[in-house]
Each structure stands twice: as structure tokens, then as C-alpha cells.
């Protein structure tokens, strides 16, 4: 009969051998791709902003953005942009996916800063790397009095999903400093709104997630400057 102690002993020995094996293996010479670095940056940034995400979760605010490597649900509407533009939007049952094409220009930089915020708001946390930037601003302790702004480089093949989980949003096309984007207004007051736009010259995508009005959100967006 095999006892749990016998299995534990065998498992410990096997685990030691496994570690010993991998410690003697030469590590792969590998430079992580910028796509991987971006995905990990986003993951680490989400980890760094637990308060905001907890607030979003508790408010059932489920319109969120993240880099994905593939889409797994059936498309029922693909809105192809004109050939000279460099992204398309696909509408899925529970998400809206943006796919990007083209390379970032050599002169592109992420040296942007938020130069206007509504009165009473202040910067709570920011996460700044060479390939992405994110910041949480808040007024007091109410999560509804806060906004998260993020921007990052995108490259060919990158996809960004706004996950709606079937919630309804009114979508309105908007222009921010001449660049086309979309404003997703939640029809439910408990859910936040999203403003999404792309600087196609520099291949930088921006999104702003908050409970503020379009007017305030657009003003914040227009005042993100170098």
C-alpha cells in the first residue's frame, strides 16, 4: 500500500532533482520582445493599482482594456477602416477589439503628461516605463471620483480589448487633437465610461476610464501633451 508519506518523500526527491536539472541547464539567450514587455508592463501595472481595480470590480465597472494575443469569441461585426489608417475595430458579443497595423515612427516618444485635470483631483499613483504610462487620479476617497489614464506604444498585430461582458454602452466617434477615437458611455450609472483614441502618427493608443462627463474627459484627453 502506498501512503501519503511515501508519495511526499518521492515528490520531494523528484522536486530536488528537477531543480538540480534546471540549474545545470544553460539559459536560453533571449531578448524578450517589445510585445511581451508591454503585456508584462500592463500586468505589473494592474498589480500596482489594486485599489482602482477593486473599486472597478465592486462597482461592476467592467469596461476594461488590456493587451490580448488572440480573440476567442465569434465576431459579428467588423468595422474595417480605410486602407491608409492603421487600426480596425471588431465588435464581439462581449468585447470590442482594436487591432493595429504598422510600425511606430522613429521619432515617436511617450513623453506625454496630463496638463489639465478637473478641480480637486490629484495624482495618487503613476506607473511610467519606456513603453507605457498609466496614472490614477482621485478626488477624496470615493472611487467614482477617480480616473485612470493610460497610454502605450502599439505595433502590428497588437490587439486591445475593451471588455463589456455584455453590458450596454453608447458609442460615439470623437476626435482628440485631430486623432480619431471613440467614447463609450455606459447606460448604467454604476459603470464607468471609456474614452479611447489613437495617435496614428506615433502609433500610441490612449484610454481614459472614469465616471466623468464626456466634456471633462475630452478636456483631460486634449491636454495630454508633450
Amino acid at each position, binding site marked *: *500500500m*502506498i501512503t*501519503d508519506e*511515501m*508519495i*511526499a*518523500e*518521492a*515528490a*520531494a*526527491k*523528484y*522536486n*530536488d*532533482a*528537477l*531543480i*538540480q*536539472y*534546471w*540549474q545545470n*541547464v544553460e*539559459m*536560453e539567450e*533571449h531578448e*524578450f*520582445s517589445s*510585445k*511581451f514587455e508591454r*503585456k*508584462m508592463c500592463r*500586468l*505589473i501595472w*494592474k*498589480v*500596482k493599482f*489594486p485599489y482602482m*481595480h*477593486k473599486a*472597478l*470590480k465592486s462597482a461592476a465597472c*467592467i469596461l*476594461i482594456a*488590456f493587451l490580448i*494575443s488572440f480573440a476567442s469569441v465569434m465576431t459579428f461585426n467588423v468595422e474595417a477602416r480605410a486602407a491608409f489608417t492603421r487600426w480596425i475595430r471588431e465588435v464581439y458579443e462581449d468585447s470590442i477589439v482594436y487591432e493595429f497595423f504598422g510600425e511606430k515612427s522613429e521619432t515617436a516618444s511617450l513623453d506625454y503628461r496630463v496638463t489639465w485635470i478637473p478641480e480637486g483631483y490629484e495624482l495618487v499613483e503613476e506607473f511610467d516605463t519606456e513603453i507605457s504610462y498609466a496614472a490614477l487620479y482621485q478626488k477624496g476617497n470615493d472611487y467614482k471620483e477617480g480616473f485612470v489614464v493610460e497610454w502605450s506604444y502599439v505595433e502590428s498585430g497588437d490587439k486591445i480589448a475593451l*471588455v463589456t461582458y455584455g453590458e450596454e454602452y453608447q458609442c460615439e466617434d470623437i476626435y482628440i487633437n485631430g486623432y480619431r477615437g471613440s467614447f463609450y458611455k455606459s447606460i448604467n450609472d454604476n459603470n464607468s465610461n471609456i474614452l479611447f483614441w489613437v495617435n496614428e502618427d506615433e502609433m500610441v493608443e490612449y484610454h481614459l476610464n472614469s465616471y466623468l462627463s464626456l466634456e471633462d474627459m475630452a478636456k483631460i484627453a486634449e491636454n495630454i501633451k508633450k
Partner: protein
Amino acid sequence: MLCYLAMIETEEERSKFEKIYIQYRRLMYTVAFRVLNNSEDAEDAVHTAFIRIAKNIEIINDDVGSLTGLMITIARNTAIDIYRKRSKQATVELTDDIEAPNTETNLDESAGCLEKLPERQKTILLLKYHYGYNNDEIAKLLEITPTNVAKIVYRAKVKLREYYEKEDVL
């Protein structure tokens, strides 16, 4: 997608996550690459493995000795999941097992018997009997159901007993 991230709520857990990422990403990439033999797929595996780690950060023991083995196990298991998914997409016939790294050195009969088990069974026995996770925790780590974990544990023990009898370990 975002909800799991809310689980990392303490400074300590957040910094634990970053430390793990910095310390183990290269090792985990190497482990994944040896399974997938493709750098893009290996990066996907590392990213997915870190999502699993983020979801379960509160049960990850960051004692270094224990962590190394656990990171290898999670990376390898995630890579195998991706391998199987890719194989299905390519309509390639699935083999029951993927070639395991040859740990050879210093394995006595009992550990040698455990090594012979199919990958998934071996991983689950390691997580349960060496790392001390219960079925629910293993299910969360491997993204399968607790019932499935229980079934695999049962099958693994039956198989292990067979090997022990054959090797005269009992």
C-alpha cells in the same frame, strides 16, 4: 480578466509578484522554450504563467528553495497547455505525454517511479504532496476543476502503485 488582479491587495504581495517576475522570468522562458521550441509561444507561456501566479499570489510561498521548483512546474505546465492547444488547432494527433526533461541524476526508485507518470499526474502529485496545496488550490493554479484534480490524483496513485510493485519498492 481584471478581477483576479484585485486579489493582489497588499504591498507585500505586490512586491512579491515583481520579485518573482524579475528573478524567474528567464528560467521560466527557458523551461517553456524547451517544450514549445518557439520563442513567441514561449513568451506567451511565460505571460500566461505570470497571470496564473498573479491570481494565486497569496498561496505562493516565496521561500527561495521552494519557489524555484514551483516556478519551473508552473512554467512547464503552462507551456504544455499551450502546446496541446496549438496541436489541436493544427489538428496534429496528440501524444499522451510530452518528453520530460531527463532529471536522471540521483533519483532513487520511488522518485524514478514518480518521474514515469504522465506530466499532468506528476505535476499534481508534486503540488499536492510536496508543495502541500489542496485540490481547490491546485485547480486554481492549473485552471482545471477540483473534481478533475481529484480524479487525476486517484489515477496517479493507482499508476504509482503499479510502478512501485513492478520496481519492488513497496
